[in-house]
């Protein structure tokens, strides 16, 4: 049976892992290579690296980190942050990324997804969407959750999947860093319109939040989190065992 995936997310700035609360207030956590190794040893099913640097030096540090991680960690690696062109895809794929996640880059140029899917295959293109509840619906935000695009999130995600996005990471801006559980209503709304794997992100505060996620929405494929893993509030082996005991298929 296909296992539900547990995915730690590492935000990398100037070669170090950081994590904000509500996308603000960054705290230094650890060396990305050490953290990635630890997560892989603990049974993480995949790792997501977001490059949140803007400078050229930072970008170089990021690809160095990625190359080091890919040389010793043999689980799928997804990379996002600053992906605006096919050259950006090329740059991170050459350093060992398996999938590339696009967010603001696709909002600026929606043809990026179809071009990348044609060149690298749908399985390589991940749409990452920052979604916020607004006026009884869901809006997609740009620039790390700071800018309202005015677009309906459900329509946006549906169109990106049509263009060739092979997976969708749904980041709930409302739930991010609040640790009161995933945004089940938003996830349900998206899962009902897309056929590709959906990765829930934002809001995980406890092991129970993951159980609730997979029980409430069987079509969700994976749960992603950062701070609860980085700060050892939830250990991945414990989480996997807890999910297994709850009857949810996981890789132990």
């Amino acid at each position, binding site marked *: 049976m296909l296992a539900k995936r547990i995915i730690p997310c590492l935000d990398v700035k100037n070669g170090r892992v950081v994590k904000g609360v509500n996308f603000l207030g960054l705290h230094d956590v650890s060396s990305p290579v050490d953290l990635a190794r630890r997560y892989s040893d603990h049974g993480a099913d995949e790792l997501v690296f977001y490059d949140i640097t803007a400078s050229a030096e930072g970008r170089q540090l990021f690809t160095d980190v990625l190359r080091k991680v890919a040389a010793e960690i043999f689980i799928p690696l997804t990379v996002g942050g600053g992906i605006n062109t096919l050259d950006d895809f090329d740059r991170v794929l050459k350093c060992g990324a398996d999938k590339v996640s696009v967010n603001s880059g696709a909002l600026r140029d929606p043809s990026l997804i179809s071009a990348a899917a044609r060149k690298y*295959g749908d*399985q390589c293109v991940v749409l990452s969407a920052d979604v916020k509840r607004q006026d009884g619906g869901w809006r997609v935000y740009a620039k790390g959750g700071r800018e309202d695009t005015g677009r309906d999130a459900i329509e946006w995600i549906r169109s990106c999947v049509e263009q060739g996005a*092979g997976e969708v990471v749904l980041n709930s801006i409302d739930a991010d860093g609040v640790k009161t559980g995933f945004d089940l209503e938003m996830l349900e709304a998206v899962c009902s319109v897309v056929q*590709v*794997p959906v990765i829930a992100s934002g809001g995980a505060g406890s092991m129970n939040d993951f159980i609730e996620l997979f029980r409430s929405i069987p079509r969700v494929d994976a749960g992603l989190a950062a701070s609860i893993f980085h700060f050892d509030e939830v250990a991945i082996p414990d989480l996997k065992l807890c999910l297994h005991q709850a009857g949810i298929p996981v890789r132990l």
Partner: protein
Amino acid sequence: MIAIIDYGVGNLFSLRSSFHFIGAEACVSSDPDVLRKADRLILPGVGAFADAAAKLRESGLAEVVREEAGSGKPLMGICLGMQMLFERSLEYGEHMGLGLLPGSIVSMEPVIPANFKVPHIGWNQLYFPADKPKHALFSQAKEGDHVYFVHTYYAADCDSVVIANTDYGAPLTAAVAKENVMGCQFHPEKSGPVGLNILRAFCRIGGAI
């Protein structure tokens, strides 16, 4: 020396890294002489069957792979590389493969339940056919171990060469072998410790290197 065949398809960084990590000497090459001198060959592949098969043919490497496989050299195809070992694929038309293994590559959509997502992406479990001894590739693997899959098409009509299946609402071919020719539909280089053990086992098949 293991040669990873480079015919212009996909990213071979992780594959080469995974062999280095387990202490095996591996190179990425499109040079027929290097492939002929290697002790073992890996045929990788991602993307569409027709494009990859055309590139392999046009590079002249299809013939080299066939000859080397015919000489008894251990060869392992991975993902689309495994699919190309077969006679033909029905992915967008009908395309010829290398014909080293009997069977066809077909879409999983007609055989899996309608509510299952396609492609089949993620960690799924290995099951070994009850009527055969466990293959040497899986000497360190257990029934039910998880490995990482990303595919829409799978190898069908190939019961005689199946050495592992997975269950995605229907049994799908996970690995195949016929003498020195082997293949994994999943990515051993992305399947954690289980995958690395499969690569280690491949390195031992046909003698130590």
